[in-house]
């Protein structure tokens, strides 16, 4: 089954994803412009694009675990997923800026409202990743440095989860479930066995530093 899937996927070029990428955002705006999103279309668009951004980030994070644990190889689509995620966050941000707050108190909102601050931080961190998502950049900055740079996607995903947690009112399950999914996808990258042995080793040498190493394991084990 997995083999058939991988074989099938081999015939799908990555550019097909770029071709499909604008469909949801165009469709959402089409519905909004034709009065099919209810009585408050700007909010619906803002929310829909936020959810799409989150789905795309999660899809990008799922590529590595899918290959490692399920053997499904989506590696060649990962760049397209990541770049699409960036453009959806950008569309989400522009919807907020133009249709929602209409350029009023933008800076005050960014510094004062925690969920905006966190969302904005996630967006800013995505810029260098989007700009360097091409082969020329990998050659220019070197594969090692490029890989380290693109580990920014972990804090970005955590910030996105936090953004959603902060923006809902009252106690709601939905953002908690998304946060758990993201935490799970990040946890799958940690080589717990290696971490365990190394921690025990360092414990013997230097008990005070036994907490260190999570970041290291996280980065060492994430295969690109």
């Amino acid at each position: 089954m997995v083999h058939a899937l991988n074989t099938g996927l081999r015939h799908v070029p990555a550019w097909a994803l770029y071709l499909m990428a604008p469909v949801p955002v165009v469709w959402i705006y089409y519905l909004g412009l034709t009065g099919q999103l209810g009585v408050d279309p700007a909010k619906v668009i803002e929310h829909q694009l936020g959810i799409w951004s989150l789905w795309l980030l999660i899809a990008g994070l799922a590529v590595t675990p899918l290959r490692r644990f399920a053997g499904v190889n989506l590696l060649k689509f990962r760049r397209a997923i990541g770049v699409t995620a960036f453009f959806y966050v950008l569309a989400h941000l522009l919807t907020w800026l133009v249709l929602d707050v209409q350029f009023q108190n933008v800076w005050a909102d960014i510094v004062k409202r925690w969920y905006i601050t966190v969302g904005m931080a996630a967006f800013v961190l995505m810029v260098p990743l989007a700009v360097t998502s091409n082969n020329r950049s990998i050659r220019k900055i070197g594969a090692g440095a490029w890989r380290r740079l693109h580990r920014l996607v972990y804090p970005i995903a955590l910030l996105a989860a936090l953004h959603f947690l902060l923006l809902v009112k009252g106690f709601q399950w939905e953002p908690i479930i998304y946060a758990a999914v993201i935490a799970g996808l990040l946890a799958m990258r940690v080589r717990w066995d290696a971490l365990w042995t190394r921690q025990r080793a360092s414990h013997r040498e230097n008990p005070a530093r036994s907490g260190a190493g999570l970041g290291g394991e996280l980065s060492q084990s994430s295969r690109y």
Partner: protein
Amino acid sequence: MAYRWKNTLTADAVTPYSAFLNRRQLMAGAAAGAIAGALPVSARAQEALEPNTWEEITTYNNYYEFGTGKEDPARNAHRLTIDPWTVRIDGLVDKPGDYSFADILSQMTIEERIYRFRCVEAWSMVIPWNGFELADLLDWVGVQSSAKYVAFETALRPDEMPGVASPVLDWPYVEGLRLDEAMHPLTMMATGIYGRDIPKQNGAPMRLVVPWKYGFKSIKSIVRITLTEDEPPASWNIANPREYGFYSNVNPNVDHPRWSQATERRIGGGLFAKRHPTLMFNGYEDEVAPLYDGMDLTKFI
């Protein structure tokens, strides 16, 4: 004694007048257990606003007992049984008891009030309510002189309300007003919209409307009204006291941690609707500002 306040928001409101009570009269009225007569004085010129459509008012609701999405209440609220409906009125009143909604209606004069409605989420509507003044109901049951606040409670029906399965808030939904706020002629119990029975998603059969406060103060589907001496709990205040105060008066100058309150999006303007400046006390400043004389409204949020 209905008709103490005259609509300023009718489309043909050329010469806007509004009933006005100054603070002293209101206090005297409350102490006497009956509100003093209203003085019509000219209000600040009001923009003539068109009420929102029936569809806008009845498909875009915050009623978390039926789900947190704006369209969930319209989809789910049909499950609510509103006949029979009993309201328990108790606490510091002369005639406590369980009153049927029909009994209450038989004693009240229904009038139309076109009010602005401003949600804390920074959107707004204009709604033509039908209902009666809360003061009339309180006068009918007799408020005792020691009462200082009015507490309200929404029905809690897990069988009929899918939203309460999730602990979004500490159910049942509760709200409160200071007695002078409750007795103010602007404060009403709505039982209809556009001359029709109020839809379930809007708080049938009877909901509070306090037009100078953020919408969440205007508690829906009321089953209990209690006169108290102490400030009663309010659901959003319990959930997040930093963001939602007991008073929650519409105030463009006091920022909310979540939304700037300086401007609002009027529902119904479509995708490119311009934001409008929010008015102090939602445009009812002349009528209600005296209630808060001497209070620092940046502290009493």
